[in-house]
Each structure stands twice: as structure tokens, then as C-alpha cells.
């Protein structure tokens, strides 16, 4: 019985060997299929990631272009301090960059979207503008953004300054002067929304948690200090000088480096506008015998603006601008 069993095992072992040989033959075609499959899979994954990349670039390019279009009504507008809520279309970042090298300098904007829990590339599509001045944190991040503008005048309107804040960044203005308080209340509107990020309070203790405290009295400890008498904004140890509420908000919402660069750009545009008015003065005198008698002051202002280097010169420039404005107001031939 035992012997019989041994002989019966032989053919079984033989067939197993044969199977193993058969397995080896099949495995060649399997290897071929697996290699080709991997190749196709890798290629399709590469294609899909490329398409996602293009989509992300498209989204960020579209976002940056939308900001350009959205800020059109703010620039060249008579309305000011009217705030609009912009939907970021999911989590978004807005990067702003200022360059002051050309005649008017350049404002660059690019956006980044969070797709599959990852931010789209930082070197995405940029939109450049020579006639925009955007003040914001850099980058400003959130799902929704508030955008508002205020005209900057020196003495005539130079440009509309655009401010972008995220609804997630809360600003609490403590004990602000009456005019600023009224303006902020106008910006907030009668019924504050759930997204509200501006708060006007008399005491610091009433401010929401984790909000940036903006105070107007030196006795308070705060993140940003605004001196309305010294006309400067103290932030992160840096001092930024301003003239008028438009520049004050600009200093509050941006960093010193961006603020100084944008102010330089604004002074470049002011210089070009004064040169334009100087030429207009000569042109109108020649064509219609209308004399503005402002030539000397205009040249003085152009020279002052040409040498502009930092925000602490803004007070001197403003003083001369006020003098020119008074003269223009009563001139036989107004220039602006």
C-alpha cells in the first residue's frame, strides 16, 4: 500500500514541474503586458498631471486677469470707499508686486488656487499694470476678499488707491478720530455681514479675538499705531509717513517695502501729471490766450518730485501742492 502510494506521487510531481514550466511560459507574456501597461499608465498619469497644471495656470491667470478687470471701476471712478466682496472661488492667494524702475513703475498681480490641498505654482501667470496701485498683505489669503478704493490727491486727483483685505484678516480700529470712524462705518455699511473684517471700537477689550489692533493713541499697546498728529503709521518696527486718509489706509494694509515702492510710483505719476499741466499751461496760453500764471510753481514741484526718495518727504510735497492748489483755484485759467 505504502509502495503504491509512492509510485502514485511521481506523476503528481511530474505534472507540478510541467505546470511550473508552463507558468514560466505564460509569465513572459505577462511581463510584456505589465511593462506595456506600466508605460501606458505612466504616460497617462503624466498627461493628467500636465492637464491639471494647465488648468491650475488657467485658473490663476484668470484670477489675476479678473483682479485687473475688477479694479477697473475703482480706477477712474468718482465713487470712493465703496467696498465689494470678491469670491476667491475656493481658497486663494493674491500676490502683489511693485516695481518702480520705469516711468510709471509696474504693479504685478498673480493668484494661486488651492487644488487637491496644494497651492498652484508660484511662477504662475502674472498680470502687469502701470496705472494701478494695490495695497494689501503679501500674499493675502482667504476664500473671500474685500476690495475698496480711495482717491489720492496732490492737489488734483493722481490715482485711486486700491485696498484688498481677506475676510479672514480682522482689523479692529480702536478710538479712531471722528472722520476716520465715520468713514469706516460707511465702508462697513449699515448691516455688518457675517464676513465682516473691519471693527470700530472705543476700547481694545471689545475687539474680536486674533484681530489686528489699529490704535490711534500712543498709550495703547497695539499691532499698528497711527499718529494723526505726526502723520505716520508705525508697524512691525517700521515707520511710514502719509498725507491724507488714502495713504493712511495704504500704510495700514501693506508692508513698509511695498508702501514705499507704491508711493514712489505715485510720485512718478504725479511728476508726469505736473509736466502735463506745465505743457497744457503753455498750449492754452498760445491757443486761447488763457494764462494760468502757475509756471514757476509747477517747475518747482516737478523738481521736488524728481528727487523723491522716501515717505518722509511727502509732508514737504503736500505743503507745496496746497500752495499750488490755492493759486489754481483763483487763477484766470484753471489748469485742473
Amino acid at each position: 500500500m505504502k509502495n503504491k502510494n509512492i509510485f502514485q506521487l511521481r506523476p503528481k510531481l511530474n505534472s507540478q514541474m510541467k505546470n511550473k514550466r508552463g507558468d514560466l511560459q505564460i509569465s513572459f507574456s505577462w511581463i510584456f503586458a505589465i511593462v506595456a501597461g506600466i508605460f501606458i499608465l505612466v504616460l497617462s498619469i503624466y498627461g493628467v498631471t500636465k492637464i491639471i497644471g494647465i488648468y491650475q495656470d488657467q485658473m490663476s491667470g484668470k484670477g489675476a486677469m479678473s483682479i485687473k478687470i475688477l479694479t477697473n471701476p475703482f480706477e477712474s471712478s468718482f465713487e470712493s470707499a465703496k467696498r465689494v466682496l470678491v469670491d476667491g472661488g475656493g481658497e486663494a492667494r493674491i500676490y502683489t508686486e511693485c516695481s518702480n524702475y520705469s516711468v510709471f513703475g509696474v504693479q504685478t498681480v498673480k493668484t494661486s488656487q488651492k487644488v487637491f490641498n496644494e497651492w498652484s505654482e508660484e511662477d504662475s501667470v502674472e498680470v502687469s499694470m502701470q496705472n494701478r496701485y494695490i495695497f494689501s498683505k503679501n500674499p493675502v489669503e482667504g476664500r473671500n476678499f474685500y476690495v475698496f478704493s480711495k482717491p489720492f490727491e496732490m492737489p488734483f486727483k493722481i490715482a485711486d488707491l486700491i485696498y484688498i483685505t481677506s475676510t479672514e484678516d480682522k482689523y479692529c480700529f480702536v478710538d479712531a478720530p471722528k472722520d476716520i470712524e465715520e468713514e469706516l462705518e460707511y465702508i462697513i455699511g449699515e448691516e455688518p455681514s457675517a464676513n465682516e473684517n473691519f471693527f470700530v471700537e472705543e476700547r481694545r477689550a471689545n475687539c474680536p479675538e486674533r484681530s489686528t489692533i489699529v490704535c490711534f493713541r500712543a498709550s495703547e499697546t497695539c499691532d499698528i499705531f497711527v499718529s494723526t498728529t505726526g502723520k505716520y503709521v508705525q508697524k512691525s518696527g517700521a515707520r511710514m509717513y502719509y498725507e491724507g486718509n488714502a495713504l493712511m489706509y495704504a500704510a495700514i494694509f501693506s508692508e513698509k517695502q511695498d508702501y514705499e515702492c507704491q508711493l514712489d510710483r505715485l510720485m512718478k505719476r504725479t511728476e508726469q501729471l505736473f509736466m502735463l499741466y506745465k505743457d497744457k499751461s503753455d498750449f492754452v496760453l498760445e491757443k486761447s490766450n488763457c494764462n494760468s500764471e502757475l509756471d514757476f510753481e509747477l517747475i518747482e514741484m516737478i523738481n521736488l518730485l524728481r528727487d523723491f526718495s522716501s515717505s518722509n518727504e511727502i509732508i514737504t510735497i503736500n505743503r507745496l501742492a496746497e500752495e499750488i492748489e490755492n493759486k489754481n483755484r483763483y487763477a484766470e485759467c484753471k489748469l485742473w
Partner: protein
Amino acid sequence: MVKKLIENPKKTKQKKAQMKIQQMSFMLIAVFIFFALVGMVVVSVLLNNMQRDAISLKEENAMLLASRIANSPELSCGKVYDKERTNCIDLDKAMVLLKNKEKYKKFWGVASLEIIKTYPKLAQPNNEVECTPQNYPNCNLITLVNNSETPDRYSYVALCRKEIYKGESVNKCELGIIVVGYEGIQ
């Protein structure tokens, strides 16, 4: 003869295996081509949408600019002509701007920018007379950014200037349009 009989089944097996490999490779190539075609269709649809989006964004931008550009400090009337008003272009300032054309070429980010006087019409039957310091104000076209080959949008504006009337300098306003051109996408 016996040897041949032993070798033949091996050869037929090899041929079958080769056939299988060929079948599989043909199948794989077909699958690959299929996916490549699907990919191409997806990419072309994506590109088409992107192009359409880009054109509509540019068009929207030009439309908004046409309605707002007259109020920019470089063109606006300010308080020169009695009171501040919207969509009023100071023609004297625009004429001075002509001298600085190159500086302002990229300033507004538009492909072309023209100011056309529409009313009153010029005495000459000629349609368009480009303004120069010599023929001003007897002209009807100021080209600030030149590129005639672009699609455009326009907006009605008041064109104001100083004029001598009975020996005195007076304000005169006429009707015109501001035309903003934008770059199309090929």
C-alpha cells in the same frame, strides 16, 4: 523522420506564442492610440474653452475701460469747465498728451486708444482729420495709442476745451466717442 516529428510540435507551439505576442502588441498599440485620441480631444476642448475665456475677459476689460478711461486724471476735465463732471475729456490736455504718446503707450494696457469728435461735424467732407498742434481744433481725431487692426469698444464722452470768442477765453464742449481697442487672440 522521427526527429522531425519530435521537433514539429515545438515549432507550432513557438509560432502560437509569437502570434499571441503579436496579437497583444497590436491590442496594446490600439489601446494606446485610443487613449492618445481621447487625450487630444480633451486638450483641444480645454484649449478652446481657455481661448473663449481669454477673449471674453479682454472684451469685458475693454468695455469697462471705454466707460471709465475718460475719468482718468490724464484725460478728465477736472474742475476746469465750471464743475466736475463724469465722462468729460479735456481736449487741451489730450493734445498735450499727444506729445508724450510714447510714454503712455502701455500705461492703460490697451491695444489702441482714440478720441473722435462726432458732433458738430467738420466743415470738410473728409471723414477723419487727425489732430496736430497746427490744425487743432479744426480736426476730429486724436490717436493716443495707435493700432487700427484691433477689435474695439467705445463710449460717448463730452469733449471740452478753451476757445477765444469775441476776444475772450471761453469754455466749449462738444460730443465725441472714446474708442478702446483690445488685442484679439489668434
